[in-house]
C-alpha cells in the first residue's frame, strides 16, 4: 500500500504509525515461536537468557537438552556411545518411543482420513449430491466441537465397546479429527475443477476408475496432499483424546510434552518445541509449494 503523493502531513504520520503497529503485531505473532529456539541451547536449566548467552559466550550454549531427549528413560545412559547404546536409545528412550508412537498413529490416521475424506469430497462437490449442506455440516463438526467434548464422548463410547487403551481406537479418533481438514482442502481444489475433462476421458472410452486415476487424481493431488498434511499435523499435535482414551504406556510426543509441562518443566521441553517448530516450517513450505503447483495446474496465476 503505497502512500499517494498528495497525502498531507497528518496522513503521512498516520501511515508510518500504522506500519509500526503492523510490525509489532507480526512480531507478536512470530516472536513467541522463535524465542524457544535459542533458549533450547541454554547450558543452564533456566527458561530465560543467561548473561553468557547474551554476550554470545560459547560456554553459555550447549546441546545438553537435546542429549537429554535421547537419554531420558534409558537403561544405561552413561555407557559408551556405541551400537548397543544406540539400540538402548531406540528401545528405552521415552521421547524416542513417544515419537515412534506419534508417527505410527499419525501415519495410519492420515491414511484413513485422506482416503475417506477425498472420496467424500468428490461426492460432495458434485452438484447432484442430496442433502449436501446438512451432510457437510456433520462432516465438518469434529473441527468445531471442542476437543474436550469429543474426548468425553469417545471415553464413554470406547469404554463401552472395548476400544479404550487400543491403538485402533486412537487412530480412529484422530482420523475423525483430521477429516474436516481433508474435506475442506479437497473441496476447495475441486471448486476450480473442469468437469469436461472427465467427460472427455469417458467419451474416449475410459471407465470411471481409469478416469479417476489418470485424470482427476493428478489434478487434485496437491489439494489431497495438503489435506493429508493437515490431518497428520492434527494427529501429531493432539493430546486431549490421547489423555482420555489411551493406556498409560501409550505415550505420544504431545502427551509427553503435556506431562513435562505439568510436572517437571525442564528446558528439554524447549528442545522438543524447537524440533517441532522446524517440522512445522517444513510442512508449511510443502503446503505452499503444493498450493502454487495446484494454481499453476488449474491455470490460476497470481496477479
Amino acid at each position, binding site marked *: 500500500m503505497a502512500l499517494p503523493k498528495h497525502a498531507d502531513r497528518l*496522513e503521512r504520520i498516520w501511515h508510518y504509525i500504522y506500519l509500526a*503497529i503492523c510490525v509489532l*503485531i*507480526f512480531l*507478536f*505473532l*512470530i516472536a*513467541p*515461536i522463535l524465542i*524457544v529456539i535459542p*533458549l533450547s541451547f541454554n547450558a543452564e536449566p*533456566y*527458561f*530465560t537468557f543467561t548473561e553468557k548467552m547474551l554476550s554470545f559466550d560459547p560456554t553459555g550454549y550447549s546441546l545438553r537438552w537435546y542429549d537429554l531427549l535421547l537419554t531420558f528413560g534409558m537403561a544405561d545412559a552413561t555407557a559408551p556411545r556405541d551400537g548397543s547404546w544406540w539400540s538402548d536409545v531406540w528401545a528405552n528412550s521415552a521421547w524416542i518411543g513417544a515419537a515412534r508412537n506419534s508417527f505410527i498413529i499419525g501415519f495410519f490416521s492420515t491414511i484413513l482420513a485422506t482416503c*475417506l*475424506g477425498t*472420496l*467424500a469430497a468428490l*461426492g*460432495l462437490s458434485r452438484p*447432484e*449430491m*442430496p442433502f449436501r449442506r446438512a*451432510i457437510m*455440516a*456433520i*462432516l*465438518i463438526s*469434529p473441527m*468445531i*466441537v*471442542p476437543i*474436550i*467434548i*469429543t474426548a*468425553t*464422548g469417545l*471415553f*464413554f*463410547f470406547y469404554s463401552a465397546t472395548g476400544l479404550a487403551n487400543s491403538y485402533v481406537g486412537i487412530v*480412529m*479418533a484422530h*482420523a*475423525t479429527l483430521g*477429516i474436516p481438514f481433508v474435506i475442506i482442502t479437497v473441496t476447495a481444489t475441486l471448486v476450480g475443477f473442469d468437469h469436461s475433462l472427465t467427460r472427455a476421458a469417458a467419451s474416449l472410452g475410459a471407465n470411471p476408475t481409469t478416469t479417476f486415476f489418470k485424470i482427476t487424481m493428478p489434478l487434485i493431488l496437491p489439494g489431497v496432499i495438503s489435506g493429508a498434511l493437515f490431518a497428520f499435523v492434527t494427529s501429531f*499435535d493432539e493430546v*486431549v483424546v490421547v489423555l*482420555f482414551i489411551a493406556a498409560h504406556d501409550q505415550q505420544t510426543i*504431545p502427551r509427553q*510434552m*503435556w506431562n513435562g*509441562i505439568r510436572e517437571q*518443566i525442564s528446558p528439554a521441553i524447549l528442545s522438543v*518445541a524447537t524440533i*517441532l*517448530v522446524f517440522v*512445522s*516450517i517444513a510442512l*508449511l513450505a510443502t503446503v505452499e509449494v503444493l498450493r502454487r503447483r495446484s494454481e499453476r495446474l488449474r491455470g490460476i496465476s*497470481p496477479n
Partner: protein
Amino acid sequence: MANITADLTPSKADTRLTTADGKPLKAALAAAQSHAKRRAFFLVLPLLLFILVTFVLPIGQMLHQSMYNPGFTLHQDVISKVKTPIMVNVRNWFDTNPPGSEPDEAAYAALAKDFLLLDELRAAGSVGTRVNYDLSGTRSLFTKTARKADKLEPPYKAALLEVDEKWANPEVWAVMRGASSAYTINFYLAAADLTRDVNGEIASVPDNRALYVKLFIRTLLLSVLITFLTFILAYPVAHLLATLPLRYSNLLMIFVLLPFWTSLLVRTTSWMVLLQSQGVINNALVASGALADDNRIQMMYNQTGTVIAMTHILLPFMILPLYSVMRPINPSYVRAARSLGATSWTAFRRIYFPQTIPGIGAGALLVFILAVGYYITPALVGGADGQLISNLIAFHMTRSLNWSMAAALASILLGGILILYWLYDRLIGIDNLKLG
C-alpha cells in the same frame, strides 16, 4: 403393411420426446439424475458411516450419560460383569411415599435390608459415591453402615442412628430420593447451580457452593474479550496483507501461517517461557530498570496468561477470513470517496469498513466458537482463576470421576456451540471455511 402405415402416421404416444431406445426422455432423465444422485451419495456414505460411529454415537452416549446414572440402582460386578439391582426396598419406599415425608420405621427397615445386600456385593462404596456427588461427606456414611449391616437389629431406626447420627438428616434422604431413579435431570440442575431441597422442590445452592454459573459467565466474558482482542490485532494486519502486492503479501503471510501450523503445545510452552515471573519478559523489564526485581509482574497462572496466549493462538483464525474478504475489495471505491472530498477517516468509516463486515462476522464467530471450548491453554497457563468451563469438564472426568456431571456440563457447552455453528453455517456457509 399395417406396421408401415402406423410408422408414417405418428400415434399420440410418439409426440413425446424419446431416447434412442424408445424410453420417454423425461423418465430417462429422471433415472439418470437419480443414478447420479445415488453415485454422489455412495461416495460420501463410507465417511458418513465412519463419522457416525466415531463421532455422532460417542456424543450421543455422552448425552445419555448426562441424564443416566445407575450408581444407586444397579451394581455391576467388576469381574463377572453381572448386574444386580440394588437399594430395591428403599426405592420402593420412595415410590410409595411422596417427597418430603418423614422416614418412618418402614423406611429404616428397608434401608437396613438393602445394606445387607450392599455388604454382600461390596457395593456400598459406589452407592456412597453416587450420593456423595449431591451431598459431600456421605460416602463414608455408606461404607461404615455396610460394614455393620449384619449386626443391625430391629428397631432399625434406632439401630441405624446408633451407627451414625446422619441417618436422621432429611437432606440425606432427599438426596437418596433424587438418586433413586437412574434417569435424572439432577446433573443439569447442578450445572445451573440448582439443587432439590428436602421436599423435592428445585432451589438454588448456597452461595459458597455455587460454581458453575459463575464459570459459564467467565468463559463467555473471556471469549468475548479474546474475540475482541483478536479483531483489534487482526484488522490492521489483514488490511496490510490485502493491500500489498501479492508477492509481498504471500511472503508476509508466512508470519500468519507459521503460528497456524505450529503445535499448540509449542505455542503454549513459548508463552510460559515468556510470561513466567523468571521468564524473558520479566527479566528484560528488570534488566532495563523498568521494574524492580522484587516487583515482577505476575502474568501467568491467572486470567492474563490465558487471555494473552489464547489471543495469540486464535489470531490466525481472525486474520485469514478478514484477509479473504478484504483482498477482493476494489480500491477505487475509497479513491472515489476521497475525490469527492471525504477525509481518509470518513472514507475508511463509510466506504471501506462496511465492506469488511462479512469478514469480521466470519472471523469473530469462528474465534468465539473456538475460544468457548478451549481446554489446553487455560489448563497450562490459566492457574486457578484462568480456568474455563472445559477445564471443569476435564476435572470431573479425570479427578472427581463424576462422569455424569462432566457429561451434563459438556452437553450444555455442546448445545451452545451447535447454535453458534448453525448460525455460522447460515450466515457464512461452512463451505466458505478456508485454511491458509
